[in-house]
């Protein structure tokens, strides 16, 4: 089989513009009811103004992997991902580690708005940050997928520490595969990434792996605030 493994860590920067975030998706994820006034103008102004130069970036690294029961072994390191993720990755021969961030500008803006008492605006910018990092991650995933398809390989969905029985603590191990402060992201002792609007995880790669569409009805996050909301299923992290 084709190997995509190399010593190169791929790093990408994304502009707010190329993410093509719409006010509609932000409002829908924020659960702005139809009977609330539209904040589309505010959202667009923020995206074109204050958040225009947000340092959105991400990167990945592909390594050979072996799945044994509920463990994924990569370069001699054991990731205890639990039955669900191990099952989804079961036929993977390689794994792409990823991290991605929407940058610190979001939190700065959120704090600024909160300090002014513009709580709803602050909340919308917060949601925008979540959409930005997930959309950037979609793009990064598409880059990984293209590379795989060109080599006759397929990818799984993306999975993150802290989800589906995979302890968030294993993020430390995941981060050890990247150089320090990669993409400007740092990890605290409690495994919290800075900037806050960041995600990490991995994607399985192989000839026999499968990509699954997310369905709320099959997800065990019954208290997810986005459960059964209109558009959230496009975002893997945001749907629990």
């Amino acid at each position, binding site marked *: 089989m084709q190997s995509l493994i190399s010593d190169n860590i791929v790093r990408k920067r994304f502009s707010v513009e190329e993410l093509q975030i719409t006010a509609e998706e932000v409002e829908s994820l924020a*659960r702005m009811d139809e009977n609330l006034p539209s904040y589309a103008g505010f959202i667009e102004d923020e995206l074109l103004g204050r958040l225009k130069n947000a340092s959105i970036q991400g990167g990945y690294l592909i390594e050979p992997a072996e799945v044994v029961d509920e463990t994924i072994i990569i370069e001699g390191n054991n990731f205890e991902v639990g039955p669900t993720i191990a099952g989804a990755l079961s036929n993977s021969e390689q794994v792409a580690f990823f991290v991605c961030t929407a940058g610190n500008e979001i939190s700065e803006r959120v704090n600024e708005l909160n300090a002014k008492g513009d709580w709803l605006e602050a909340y919308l910018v917060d949601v925008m940050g979540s959409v930005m990092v997930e959309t950037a991650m979609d793009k990064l995933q598409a880059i990984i997928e293209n590379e795989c398809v060109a080599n006759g390989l397929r990818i799984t969905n993306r999975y993150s520490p802290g989800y589906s029985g995979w302890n968030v603590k294993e993020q430390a191990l995941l981060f050890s595969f990247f150089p320090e402060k990669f993409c400007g992201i740092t990890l605290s002792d409690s495994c919290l990434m800075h900037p806050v609007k960041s995600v990490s995880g991995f994607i399985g790669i192989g000839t026999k792996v499968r990509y699954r569409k997310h369905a709320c009805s099959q997800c065990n996050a019954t208290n997810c605030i986005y459960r059964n909301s209109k558009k959230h299923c496009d975002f893997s992290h945001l749907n629990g």
Partner: protein
Amino acid sequence: MEELFEQLAYCIEYGKINKPSPFPPDMKDKDGADEITQQLLNEGISADDILQKALIVGMEKVGVKFRENKVFVPQVLMSAKAMDAAMAHLKPHFANSPGSQKGTFIIGTVEGDLHDIGKNLVAMMVEGNGYEVIDLGTDVKAEKFIEAAEQYPGAVIGLSALLTTTMNNMEEITKAIKSHNRNIAICIGGAPVNQDFCDKIGADSYNPDPQGVVEFLNKTVE
């Protein structure tokens, strides 16, 4: 008078801040929380009556609707903003007669955790229900909670955490507070927290939503 109380409660419930605010559409050009509160004060109604008979009534309705998934975060924030406009008129009166609020609630996101949307929502709802809220912010250590509890005797402490790793810090903070003074009541919440965890760490109350804390406080604080 009853009618004005009702109108004010409605403004809080639906987030009608003041006359110029365009929302909700059916109240266009009508007085909002700002004007009605001033009007009530002008008529000699006490700040405490306004709080109890209008503001809390409205806020409680929002809390219940939020719990039942009938409204979402943005609507709660609109209500909080209307509440804030009303409280701006009332606060000077409370400052003159301490104790007229129902009690004190100290809240913070635990050490190691920076998430604050959930914590802020809880703070707003509790304040909207007539309590004084001391918000210690995010990444708060045990000592800071204890210090605040010393400063506000009888206050209840609320801890928020959003990651399973910072839940561990919640446990340590709870134990530290309890060993300092086991009479301090502690409520916990946040996405990964549940009742089992609450029982395990010896906290007094777990609630999945802000209204739950309000009900706990109403039962606990005299």
